[in-house]
């Protein structure tokens, strides 16, 4: 990499920034919307920073809300990049190899969202350094939260550095050297599973919360992630296909579809298994499920959400399963959006809120996010989308130039 003094990292990055920002009117409108949402989020967060988390809808009973719900879901989206990485690098699947960089970009964006959600959820964000080993105290291995910090940051590093290396090589018209990055690819495959299992263990490891204290939680996290994550990647691929000239072969959609169907069906089977356990022999430990699916003591704010989620889950699964062989972009988009939304509701606040209600003392309350909370959440989502956009755009430019051969005008003779 350093053998090319003329085009060092600085030129590389300035080219990337240039490519990130180039685009038509629609692209600038899209950017403006994202920036406006981020601005609103920053404004709302400023308010939360001054007043405290009291401006959210959370309470001593529902002590985690929209932030942690979204965090949990987007860990799954990040983990799902492995569904592209595995076939692309391990089985040398050509179609997946074309788009694996997009999966990695989505993973990095999702991780940025996760870390931001954790940060905005903290009561003392300025004290994060208390967790840094050396200057702080890191309660590892006892606290699962410390494991989560390790695996999320590690996964972020893996998913940033491997693509960065490959793109940097391609930028110079070189082929990346296998032994330099393949070990990290293997590592990231195991790591992807670990980020989601560890995040599930955060909840699964709490006997205080019977709704979470369930050995199926981790596996089900994975199944739903491997359905929702590829659905997100499919949405991004469709957007790229429709709005750029980057060639995306239709076979990739069929391959993704197959992954999604298998994962979504496993997810539904596990959901059914959980519902059976909760309601066939209704115990005290089933009260959270009762609250989620049917309402408890007159509190039923989650009921319409969870049934919408289940409806969307089934709809999305069926749409993917019975897709006509020549299904168009809009058909797949509808299927992906419904499956994504269904799992987002179910694995987000459909999982977090009922774990906290009823409280360990049997008290039932409803939770509704405040408008500030929603603004902050939207701001974080916009920030993540911006990251994804700014990663994928230059990556696609570099890749298509590389594929055109080593005859790019700026290439200095490699």
């Amino acid at each position: 990499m350093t053998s090319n003094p003329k085009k060092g990292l600085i030129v590389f990055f300035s080219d990337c920034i240039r490519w990130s920002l180039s685009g038509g009117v629609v692209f600038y409108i899209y950017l403006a919307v994202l920036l406006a949402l981020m601005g609103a989020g920053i404004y709302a967060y400023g308010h939360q920073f001054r007043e405290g988390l009291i401006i959210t809808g959370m309470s001593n009973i529902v002590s985690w809300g929209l932030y942690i719900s979204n965090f949990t879901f987007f860990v799954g989206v990040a983990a799902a990049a492995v569904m592209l990485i595995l076939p692309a690098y391990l089985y040398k699947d050509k179609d997946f190899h074309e788009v694996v960089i997009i999966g990695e970009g989505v993973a990095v964006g999702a991780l940025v969202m996760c870390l931001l959600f954790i940060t905005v959820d903290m009561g003392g964000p300025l004290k994060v350094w208390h967790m840094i080993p050396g200057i702080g105290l890191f309660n590892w291995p006892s606290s699962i939260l410390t494991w989560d910090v390790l695996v999320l940051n590690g996964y972020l590093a893996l998913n940033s550095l491997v693509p960065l290396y490959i793109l940097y090589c391609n930028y110079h018209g070189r082929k990346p050297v296998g032994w330099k990055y393949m070990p990290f690819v293997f590592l990231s495959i195991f790591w992807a599973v670990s980020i989601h299992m560890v995040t599930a263990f955060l909840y699964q490891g709490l006997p205080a919360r019977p709704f979470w204290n369930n050995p199926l939680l981790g596996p089900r996290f994975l199944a739903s992630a491997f359905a929702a994550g590829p659905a997100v990647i499919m949405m991004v691929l469709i957007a790229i296909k429709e709005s750029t000239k980057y060639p995306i072969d239709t076979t990739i959609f069929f391959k993704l579809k197959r992954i999604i169907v298998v994962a979504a069906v496993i997810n539904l089977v596990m959901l059914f298994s959980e519902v059976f356990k909760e309601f066939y022999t209704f115990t005290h430990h089933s009260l959270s499920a009762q609250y989620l699916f049917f309402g408890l003591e007159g509190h039923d704010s989650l009921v319409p959400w969870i049934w919408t989620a289940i409806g969307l889950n089934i709809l999305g699964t069926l749409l993917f399963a019975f897709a006509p062989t020549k299904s168009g972009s809009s058909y797949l988009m509808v299927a992906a959006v419904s499956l994504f939304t269904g799992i987002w509701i179910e694995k987000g606040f459909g999982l977090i809120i009922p774990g906290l209600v009823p409280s360990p003392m049997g008290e039932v309350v409803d939770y509704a996010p405040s408008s500030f909370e929603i603004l902050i959440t939207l701001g974080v989502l916009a920030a993540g989308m911006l990251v994804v956009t700014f990663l994928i755009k230059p990556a696609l430019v570099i890749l298509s130039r590389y594929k055109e051969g080593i005859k790019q005008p700026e290439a200095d003779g490699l």
Partner: protein
Amino acid sequence: MDHGKKKNAPLKKAGPLENKCTRRSFLKGVSIAAAAGSAGLVTGGCGSVASSEEAKLKWDEFFKKNYRLMTQEEKDATVARLEKLAKLRYGLDVQVSNQEPLDNVLYGYAFNITRCKGYMDCVEACVQENNLDRQSKTQYIRIFEMDSGQLDPTSGDGKYFHEVPVEDKFYMGVQCFHCENAPCIKACPTKATWQEPDGIVVVDYDWCIGCRYCMAACPYWGRRFNWGDPVVPKEEINTKQHYLGNRMRWKGVMEKCTFCVQRTRQGKLPACVDACPTGSRVFGNLLDPDSEIRFVLKNKKVFRFKEELNTDPKFWYFMD
């Protein structure tokens, strides 16, 4: 602010300050005080001198270590800073203790469900003693009104608001149970909460990052979070404080019952035990064979809440 100029004029008025502030911070503050004018100075204690002194104190406070890693000198220094900050902020002379656990003491608690009549004097005493937030009406103790035939407080009514006692009802108090095997301690990512040698589970408020994982982990709902800045009227602040106990908290940190560490380490009873008009609450040293708590454990039929979770609480219920 206008530094340097007009240094001489208000010096006279600033004079008496020397008693309250250290000489160094006084000199540093003079120029600021000069610009701020005299009115605030005379009435408001350190006045604007405070702003720079307060900032310095807060800066030092921000970078201090976890309480358990501090040397005795560092503990004394932070306590001195906290006392100074309280003086600047509330104009109160608080005493923040950093008294260590007593030797050969392990605290235990027992609750007589036959005697308790649900008067809630314990709750009130706890709020006063521990400087609990009046705005959000934070309470460490919950009393549940129970129907006969039950022994699980989760089936009771924790929000009753009527004259007590009610016939055919009995009452169960719940608070932090100071578990030997506490799930909250295991959960904390920064070791900001731990069990002291005398069995009290405490929080280092300065070290807590406010992630609320301990709250999710507690099977007894024993922890309270400061969603906003807690409000305690100045005249109601209990000035006898402990670093790990009832000193003033702020937004974004976790807090909980500490068995009134500021009292119990001085050989006193927790405020709730003191306040109980029916004598339902028994507190004492589990290592002392002659203590009342040992008598209860030996001679009464006792049980613990959610024992199946293996948290090993040091809080027992018993009946006469």
